[in-house]
C-alpha cells in the first residue's frame, strides 16, 4: 500500500503508517491483498452492479445514458462512539433548520431580531411567496435532508452543505452495503457493522406521520418522479418499491376540489402524502413555472389547505442557500439555545464588501461556489484553476456578489481506493440523511462519495466520482 500524502488526513492510516483505532482488522486485510485479488474484487463488483441494475442516468449530447454505479470495494469505517456525537449534531442542525424555515414563512422573528439579515432571506429566489403563512404538520418542511460532511487535515468533521430540496443518494447507500455483502462476505466476520437498510421503514414512518387525515388503513403515500430520464430515477423506483408505494409522474395525479387523486385502473384514488422528487419549480403550473409538463395543476392549493402533505415541502430551499449556510450556527443557537455540535466551514459572504475584497485578492486559494446550484456545477477550485478562469470568476463576483460564497480549499480526508488494481489514497466526503417528521432520525453513516481521480476534490457522480460502503463499527 502506498503511503498517504502527509498533508491530508487518511481515515485508515496514521501519518506513521499504522492503522487508526478500530481499523486494525481492515488495515491488515487490505495489506494481505495483492493486485490479482483487487482485480478479482473489482470485476465482481462491476458485474454485481450491472446485474443488480444499479445505475444513474446522465445526459450527454442530447442522449440519456444509463451508467453503472461506480462502486469502490474498500469500505470506509467510522467508529460508533464518534458517529453518535456526529448524528446528534446532524439532528440538532435539522431541527433548527426546520424551525428557521417555519419562522421565515410566518413570524419572521429571526429576521426582526436581526440574527439573519432580512434581505438575504426575503430577496432570495429561494424564498417562495407562495408559501407564506403555511406551517406543515410537525413543522416538518425539509423532511429529508442530505448533509455533506467532510474532514479536514486534522480529522475534524465539518458540515459543508445542507441539501434540503430533493437530495439524492440514499438508495446507493443501501445498495453499496448489498454489494459489499455479495463481494466481500468474509470481511464482515470480524466486524460488527450497523445495518443501513432500516432507512426505508424510517422514511415510510416519517412520511406517514405527515399524513393530513387519519385514514383507517395505511395512508396513501406516492413517490413523485420526473420520469425515467431523471438522473435519480433508479432511486425513485427503489424507494417506491421499498415502501410499497406507487411511483407516480405528474400526469398520473390530478386535483379536484382541493384534493389530490391518482388515476388508477379502478378510477380516482385519494393521495395523502407526496414524496416529491421533482424540483418545486415544476410541481404546479398554477403556482410556479407555467410551462411545466411535469406538474399537477392546483397542487399548491391542496397543500395549503392541508389536504395533502408534500415532502420536502415547497419553499424548503430557502434554508438551502449557501448564503444562509454561514448563519446556521447562529440559527441553531437562536432556536434551540444550544451550542452547535457540528462545525461549519469558514465561509466568505461575497455580498459583504470587505469579504468580497478578500475573496478577489485570494481567489487562487479559495473555492468559489454559486449560492444556488448543486451537483458541483459552476464552482471554481482556486488552486486547480487557470488565471483565465480566475479572471472570469472575479468578473462574475463583482457583477453579482450575492450569488456567490467562497471557502478555503479544504484538505479533504483520504482513504485507500482501488485505482489501476492497487489501493491509493483518494479524497472523500459523507452524505448522511436525516428525516424530520413526528421525530428526527439519522442514517447509520450515509453515502460515502469518493473522487476517483488522483488529487481531485470533486466527488459528484455526475463528474467522475465514485462511492463506498460506509461502516459504523463498534
Amino acid at each position, binding site marked *: 500500500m502506498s503511503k498517504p500524502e502527509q498533508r491530508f488526513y487518511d481515515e485508515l492510516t496514521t501519518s506513521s503508517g499504522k492503522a487508526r483505532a478500530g481499523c486494525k482488522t481492515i488495515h491488515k486485510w487490505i495489506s494481505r491483498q495483492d493486485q490479482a485479488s483487487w482485480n478479482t474484487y473489482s470485476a465482481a463488483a462491476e458485474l454485481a452492479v*450491472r*446485474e*443488480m*441494475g444499479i445505475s444513474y442516468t446522465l445526459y450527454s449530447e442530447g442522449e440519456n445514458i444509463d451508467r453503472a454505479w461506480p462502486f469502490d470495494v474498500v469500505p470506509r469505517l467510522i467508529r460508533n462512539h464518534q458517529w453518535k456525537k456526529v448524528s446528534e449534531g446532524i439532528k440538532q442542525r435539522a431541527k433548527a433548520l426546520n424551525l428557521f424555515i417555519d419562522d421565515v414563512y410566518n413570524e419572521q422573528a429571526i429576521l426582526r431580531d436581526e440574527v439573519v439579515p432580512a434581505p438575504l432571506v426575503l430577496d432570495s429566489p429561494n424564498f417562495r411567496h407562495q408559501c407564506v403563512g403555511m406551517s406543515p404538520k410537525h413543522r416538518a418542511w425539509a423532511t429529508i435532508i442530505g448533509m455533506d460532511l467532510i474532514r479536514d487535515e486534522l480529522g475534524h468533521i465539518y458540515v459543508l452543505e445542507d441539501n434540503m430540496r430533493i437530495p439524492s443518494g440514499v438508495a446507493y447507500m443501501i445498495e453499496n452495503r448489498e454489494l459489499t455483502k455479495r463481494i466481500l462476505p468474509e470481511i464482515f466476520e470480524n466486524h460488527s457493522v450497523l445495518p443501513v437498510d432500516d432507512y426505508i421503514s424510517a422514511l415510510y414512518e416519517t412520511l406517514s406521520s405527515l399524513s393530513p387525515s387519519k385514514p383507517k388503513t395505511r395512508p396513501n403515500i406516492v*413517490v413523485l418522479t420526473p420520469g*425515467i430520464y431523471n438522473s435519480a430515477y433508479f432511486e425513485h*423506483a*427503489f424507494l*417506491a*418499491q421499498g415502501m410499497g*408505494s*406507487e*411511483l*407516480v*409522474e405528474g*400526469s*398520473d395525479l*390530478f386535483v379536484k376540489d382541493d384534493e389530490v*387523486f*391518482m*388515476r*388508477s*385502473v*379502478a*378510477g*380516482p384514488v385519494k393521495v395523502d402524502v407526496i414524496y416529491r422528487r421533482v424540483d418545486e419549480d415544476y410541481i404546479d403550473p398554477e403556482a410556479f413555472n407555467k410551462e411545466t409538463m411535469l406538474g399537477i395543476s392546483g397542487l399548491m392549493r391542496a397543500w395549503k389547505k392541508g389536504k395533502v402533505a408534500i415532502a420536502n415541502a415547497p419553499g424548503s430551499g430557502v434554508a438551502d442557500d449557501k448564503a444562509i449556510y454561514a448563519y446556521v450556527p447562529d440559527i441553531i443557537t437562536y432556536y434551540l439555545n444550544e451550542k452547535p455540535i457540528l462545525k461549519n466551514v469558514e465561509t466568505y459572504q461575497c455580498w459583504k464588501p470587505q469579504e468580497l475584497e478578500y475573496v478577489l485578492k485570494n481567489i487562487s486559494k479559495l473555492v468559489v461556489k454559486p449560492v444556488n446550484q448543486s451537483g458541483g456545477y459552476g464552482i471554481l477550485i482556486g488552486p486547480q484553476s487557470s488565471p483565465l478562469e480566475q479572471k472570469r470568476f472575479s468578473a462574475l463576483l463583482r457583477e453579482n456578489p450575492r450569488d456567490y460564497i467562497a471557502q478555503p480549499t479544504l484538505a479533504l480526508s483520504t482513504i485507500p481506493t482501488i485505482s489501476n488494481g492497487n489501493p491509493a489514497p483518494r479524497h472523500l466526503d459523507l452524505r448522511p440523511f436525516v428525516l424530520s417528521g413526528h421525530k428526527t432520525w439519522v442514517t447509520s453513516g450515509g453515502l460515502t462519495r469518493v473522487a476517483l481521480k488522483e488529487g481531485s476534490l470533486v466527488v459528484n457522480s455526475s463528474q467522475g466520482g465514485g462511492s463506498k460502503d460506509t461502516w459504523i463499527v463498534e
Partner: protein
Amino acid sequence: MLSRVAEKLYWLARYLERAENTARLISIYNHLIMDIPKGSEPSWMILIDILDAREQFEYRYNSETEQNIHRFLIERSEEQCSVPYSILQAYENVRTTRDTLPQEAWEYISELRLYVIQYSKQSLARSKRLAFLDEIVQRCQMLTGLFHSSLSRDEVYSFLRIGKLVERADMGIRITDVGAQDIMDREGALKSIDQLLWGALLEALSAKSAYRRMKGPVVDKEDVIELIFQAERFPRSLTYCLRELRVELMRLPNSEASLKKAHKILRILKSYDSRQEVYLHEYNTNLQKLLRELGVSFSKTWFQRDGL
C-alpha cells in the same frame, strides 16, 4: 394501481411471452429443417410469415436466405419481430414498473438484456443459434416463474397475466394459421414427413408432450388442431388461455365489456369442429380480429388516462 403502470405491465408480459415464443419457434424450425431430407424442406420464410413480417423483411433484404432470415430475427434489435426487440421492450417496461415487481425481476431482465446485446451477433451460425435461443427461452421462463411464485394475486399480477395470455393466444393462432396452411398445401406430396411437420407445429407451441399424453404418439392433423384450439387443461391451448383470461378479468374493476368479448371468442372456439369442412384460414382470421378487439377494449377501460 396507476393506469400508466397497468399498461406497462400488460406490455411487459406480452413482450416477454413474445420473446419466448419467437425464440422457441425459430429453434424448433431449425430442428425440423435438420430432420428433413435435403430438397423437400419447407421454406425458411415460414418464420417470417408467422411473424407477419414479409413486407419489412423484403424491404431490408434482397434474398430469402437462411442467414438473412436469422439476422433479421436474432440480430436486428430494431426490427419489431426480432427476439432482441421484444427483450429490449420488456426491459424498458420493467424499468418503469420495477417498483411494483419483485426486486429480482429487475436483476433478471437486466441480465437478459445484457446477454442478448452481447451474444446475438455471435449466435447466427447454426452451431451457436440453438444454444442462444434456448437460453432466451429459459431466462424468460425464469421471469415468468418469478412472477408466478412471488407476486401477490393483485392487480399487478392480473395485468401481467392478461398480457401473457393474450400474447400466447395470438401466437397460437399465428402458428396454426401459417404452419397448418403450409402443411396442407403440400399434403400428399410427401406423406412421410407429414408427421414431422405436425410434430414441429406442436413443439413450437410447447405442446408435444401434452399431445402424447392425451392422444398418443401418432400425430394426427385433426387432433393437433383440436388440442390447440380446444384442450381445456393444456395451458397453451386457446380455450385455456381465454378461460384464464376470463378469470383475471373478473378480478379487475369495470371489466364487463372485455368479459363479453372473451366470452364470444370462447364460443367460437367451442364451435370448431374438425370433422366439418372448415376454412381454417378464415376461422383464424376471425379469431385474430376478435383478439385485437379485446386488446382495444383493455386500452379503453384501463389504460387511457384522459377520461378521468
